[in-house]
């Protein structure tokens, strides 16, 4: 089965996955229209900044067993048997944040949502774009990601590909660097900034 696979080393921090996610969880499905809705749709994927301000796309892993599900006393969190997606029934959510405390990734958020009873904040998280997938589309974040940090792939195949990459990177005489030179240069600048900051702080 295909799923969204996160390749954090490819994230450039553009946050376009976040906009795409918020858009497809809006009523108008149009970015400008979505921005005018109340409650405003919010992204279920969260791009954070690493130590040297590199991007990191933090997305629900739909763990199995899922700590959030186990922590949910009202049974609002459940797994859809067809897609294996961990979902939240907003009608049952009592906004107790137990799930958030249990989630090792910190991807749960609490706010009003178009899918929830009006005027009430509930737990909201990634739904794997199940609706889009059932329409033959791929999850919005993976569609928006142009660098391959979020890809919609078969896990087996993706891991196989990764194994090949690692193997090639480990063997000597590799002709193509694992990371393009441009990206390496860009990141080295960001790392240098961090190093200097640390040193300046120490001094």
């Amino acid at each position, binding site marked *: 089965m295909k799923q969204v696979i996160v390749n954090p080393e*490819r*994230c*450039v*921090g*553009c*946050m376009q996955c976040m906009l795409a996610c918020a858009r497809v969880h809006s009523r108008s499905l149009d970015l400008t229209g979505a921005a005018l809705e109340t409650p405003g749709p919010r992204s279920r994927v969260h*791009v*954070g*900044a*690493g130590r040297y*301000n*590199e*991007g*990191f796309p933090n997305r629900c892993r739909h763990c199995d067993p899922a700590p959030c599900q186990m922590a949910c006393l009202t049974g609002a969190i459940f797994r859809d048997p067809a897609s294996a997606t961990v979902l939240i029934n907003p009608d049952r959510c009592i906004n107790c944040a137990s799930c958030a405390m249990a989630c090792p990734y910190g991807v749960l958020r609490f706010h009003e949502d178009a899918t929830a009873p009006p005027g009430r904040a509930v737990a909201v998280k990634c739904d794997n774009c199940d609706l889009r997938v059932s329409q033959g589309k791929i999850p919005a974040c993976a569609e928006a990601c*142009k*660098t*391959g940090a979020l890809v919609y792939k078969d896990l087996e195949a993706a891991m196989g590909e990764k194994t090949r990459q690692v193997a090639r990177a480990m063997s000597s005489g590799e002709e193509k660097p694992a*990371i*393009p*030179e*441009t*990206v390496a*240069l*860009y990141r080295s*600048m960001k790392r*240098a*900034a961090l*190093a*200097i*900051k640390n040193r*300046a*702080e120490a001094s």
Partner: protein
Amino acid sequence: FDPKAEISVTQDGNRLFEKAVKDNIETVWHRHEAQQPQCGFCDMGLSCRICIMGPCRVDPFGEGPQTGVCGADADIIVARNLCRMIAAGAASHSDHGRDLVEVLESVSKGTAPGYKIRDEDKLRQLAGEYGVDMEGKDVLAIAGDLARAMMEDYGMRQKAVTLVSRAPEKRRELWDKVGITPRGIDRETSEMMHRTHMGVDNDWQSLLVQGLRNALSDGWGGSMIATEVSDILFGVPAPKPTMVNAGVLKKDQVNIVVHGHNPVVSEMVSKACMSEEMLDLAKAKGAFGINLAGVCCTGNELLMRRGIAMAGNHLMTELILTTGAVDMMIVDYQCIMPSIGKVASCYHTRMVSTSDKAKFPGMEHHEFHPENAEKKAMALVKTAVENFTNRKEVMIPVEPQEAVGGFSVETIIQALGGTAEPLIDAIKAGKIRGAVGIVGCNNPKIKHDHGHVTLTRKLIEKDILVVDTGCVSVANAKAGFKLASAADMAGPGLKEICKALGIPPVLHLGSCVDNVRILVLVSALANALGVDISDLPVAGSAPEWYSEKAVTIGVYCVASGITTHLGPMPPITGSLNVVNLLTRGLTDVVGAGFAVEPDPEKAALFLINHIEEKRKGLGLDS
């Protein structure tokens, strides 16, 4: 944010940041943090919004799109984006120069009360360079003719902007050969904007070549005009003592801070601050006087010519307001963060914008024009004085630091005894190994002033004379490098020369447009030695730059033959071709190139090495 976060290498910076956090003020560091991670496409120069078939971006990992909708690849997109930065920078300086030329013309017509020709020698010198017929004409008539001749530099009727004549002959020949002699000031900017339109120039190299020409139209055109006309109208700077840092604000005086770049406004404010009427009013309000201080470049302009104190540089502009001691901040244009109106609203500070080209949220707008500037300035100072009584809690975080500023090329030569000979001798003898111009801004990506101060210290230790402008000059003055006694921080050779001449090892050359003083100085040196600028043991550096103007300055320096170091990386890493051209390939074209190195210690090594190489090239130590 931790109020104890050391955002600066300066004490006043850190103390005021702590106060800002406690006062719940959102600062540039907060906003920078909130923007993390910044968009990698944009940061690498790989996004394009030039047309609405787009927006487009190129995947730096090579898997996603490699061209925009039009077909532009990474090289083209990166080059176009960089070139538009150059265009904006050139336009900014040159539009500033334009304002001065218009004041000069108004003075000649007698429609600019309060302004006058303060340096007739310089007026005549410039008029000579512009081929103005001075025979039997009075000063004002000459000024008018000069202003109109300068206006032609902005137009399209010339083959070259006039003041390229100041460049060494070899340099001019090179420019002609490469095809980058700037023709008109606005023209090159317009052509740059045209070339970067969809479907015009799609050769990254030819785009960058026009980028060089556009930048030269600033360095030898707009900026040079700005500096020279400022000298004519407000006087050629001469060394004088001053004070720097947030401690220059006075608890018991009315504090007026000018912010921006154009002396046209701040000079009138300075005049008004010294008027009997205002001083009396201040006394009546219980103040011991009117204390004018500057931030950013308009402050530098005043410091250079009147010794007026500097309260801080770019990243200090918000913090200065948190002292609660600023009764009025008067801004013109450039580098004025739109946030400061909001910061001021938490204190009693009155915020005033003055330019017809620049308004800001949360500021009162009082437009200065040559005809009304004198009066407007008086009215504003009056309001500021009246605001003194509205002060609440005031915190002046440090004692002010002494410094000497005001080195124009003219006065440097004068300090040398009337000719550049002693300087050249010192260089030849190896007592001074060379010189580096450190210029540019602050950037929250780098600990405030860390780049400037570290680099400067390392260079003077190695007997390299440092000249600085803009925000760097404030950082260096605050660090104490601008006292004659700072010669002790210099290496033995430089120390000896500084002691002999009674000058500091770090000379303040002025504002950002005043970087042209560096061009004039190196041209004089090159001419004296009979070599090109690119042969000299000199370099440029912008360790903490942030602005498009800084890009343009860097590019005109390099195009003029001065190898230049940049602290922060420009948004070009998406194209190795562009990176390689700027850092390596350009040397074959203009005899100089860029080096990017965020670490000021490593940058110092690079610059020292560069200077030693140039010395070798000239056979100086053999």
